[in-house]
């Protein structure tokens, strides 16, 4: 199972904080996860997740969207940070 979390503007736009996704041979990278969520969520999800400035984290570290995944991983999608 993959845990997928959404923050800030993306959480609001998708109206979703968190979901679980089965880990399969079709969800090998973060890009695969984005494609699968876009397919099942429809055009609204696609618009949000495919924005060029979406940041991806894997197990609490920012990574490239081509990053390979393992079963049990926690993935997160969020806009650029604005702390401090």
């Amino acid at each position, binding site marked *: 199972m993959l845990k997928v979390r959404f923050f*800030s503007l993306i959480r609001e736009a998708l109206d979703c904080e968190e979901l679980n996704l089965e880990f399969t041979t079709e969800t090998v990278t973060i890009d695969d996860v984005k494609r699968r969520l876009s397919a099942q969520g429809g055009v609204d999800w696609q618009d949000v997740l495919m924005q060029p400035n979406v940041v991806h984290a894997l197990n609490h570290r920012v990574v490239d969207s081509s990053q390979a995944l393992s079963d049990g991983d926690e993935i997160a999608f*969020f806009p650029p*940070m604005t702390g*401090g």
Partner: protein
Amino acid sequence: MSVLVQEQAFEVREQYEQVLSNSPGAALVAFTGYVRDICDYGVVEALELEHYPGMTEKVLDDIGMAAAQRFSLLGWRIVHRFGVLQEGEPIVWVGVAAAHRGEAFAGCQFIMDTLKTRAPFWKKEHLKEGGAIWVASKEQDEQREREWRDSTL
């Protein structure tokens, strides 16, 4: 050598003591960021800060340790609040101690510049006139963080 992420206010004297607790150091530089009263869209009533629990602490710890190594810091502490904060309230406090003031200034600035673009916090400004808007990331902040990466200092 420590990170504190909390909703409540913090006592500034305690933070100084934390920075100095391990090693005295001769120079301490501390940055405090407060909720602005004005933003691009009007008068700010409150600031809402969302963060990513678990990741936040890890990233702040990485940033502090990188700064400590790069600038020979003798002590450091990063305090960042989340939740709803009123105008004028402190959001973030970063203190670093070093043997010399040049290292202390540079170390504190490095932490702030890096934290701005790397720590998973998101600000939403609630306006006095009503309505709320997510703060957009600034190109200037990205630029500052890149400069540290390119610099050999």
